[in-house]
């Protein structure tokens, strides 16, 4: 990936902002990350997203979000970041033992 400094870049003009694309596959379903693309503004990002990620009705709705606006937790910190949830088994139904109520016929 060495960029040859002597050669003028052929495409200084294609580095538009990067957008993350989220598609909703069907009504009632949550949006899911599909990929990303470059576009000069939000509206063109939406149109490009339709042409790239929904050529076969893969989506009934699309979100585009400027990539730099996304704040993500770090993979390496997964342990410490999520460990507040580690010692709280009482948040799960399996934690409890209850008498079994049987169906009464009369």
């Amino acid at each position, binding site marked *: *990936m060495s960029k*040859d400094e002597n050669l003028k*870049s052929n495409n200084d003009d294609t580095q538009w902002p990067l957008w993350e694309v989220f598609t909703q596959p069907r009504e009632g379903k949550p949006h899911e990350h599909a990929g990303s*693309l470059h*576009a*000069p503004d939000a509206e063109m990002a939406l149109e490009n997203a339709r042409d*790239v990620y929904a050529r076969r009705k893969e989506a009934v709705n699309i979100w585009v979000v400027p990539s730099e606006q996304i704040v993500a937790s770090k993979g*390496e910190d997964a342990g410490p970041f999520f460990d507040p949830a580690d010692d709280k088994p009482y948040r799960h139904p399996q934690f409890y033992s209850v008498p079994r109520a049987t169906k009464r016929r009369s």
Partner: protein
Amino acid sequence: MEDSTKREAFQERIDKGETIEPKDFMPDRYRQQLIRMMSQHAHSEIVGMLPEGNWITRAPSLRRKLILLSKVQDEAGHGLYLYSATETLGASRQEVIDDLLNGRAKYSSIFNYPTLSWADVAVIGWLVDGAAIINQTMLARSSYGPYARAMVRICKEESFHKKQGYEMVAKMAEGTPEQQEMIQDAVNRWWWPTLMMFGPHDDDSPNSAELIKWGVKSKTNDELRQSFVDRHVQEAHTVGLEIPDPDLEYNEETGHWNFGEIDWDEFWKVVKGNGPMNRERLNARRKAHEEGEWVREAAEEYARKRKLRQEKVS
């Protein structure tokens, strides 16, 4: 220096079949190898539009024209999925594309062969996309999340590519004597270059072992090539076409087809840039890029004006 405990932990994650995501730790070499492999893959999709695009205006019917247009458009989409996945590794798209336009990057050699007749369009769909499916189905299980997910998306579309090609192959194979001759001629010319798509023998493929260790690939070049041969020989025979290989023979013991040796001199010649269409393809890419400049300018101007208008309103 990366510390070795991190690298060991990374290898452990791979061995457990975990998926590596963009923000996770990864050894530099893993990142570099993936950038190389994924950008080459992206370039192949883009350059791959040229040999078939060449026939769009001469398609024999409106149906075939619609199909071909939509296939070639899919390939552009595949290129974009892959460029976008490559960017998640920190590669700049501009540099990656510069590398292609300036002839520093590689792409699949298959696209450096010419498409001489309409039958080539049929055979490319059947054989070249058929080979791509075998390779990409494996890559859909690759250890790098964005790559694997792009592959899943691509594989769904490739089955249409292969099927439309095979349909056309079958039609021509039962057509007029001229059509039969055309289709056999196309198979004769594309068979060997397609086998070369899987790359050198395992012994001559220095990257292979490393990529397998890292879970990027799960099968060797020769294994993939064998499954391609097994599947496509059957399909050729089903429609009465011959495979141009005198050594082709079914092996009862292994259940596989034995086949002849690839012409490796030709393989390396094309890889090194001296194939029949290498120069032509790159020139076509550069020309397309230059001629698209006004479209990019117009898009930018349109965005600028719309922003101005919105500012005025508010």
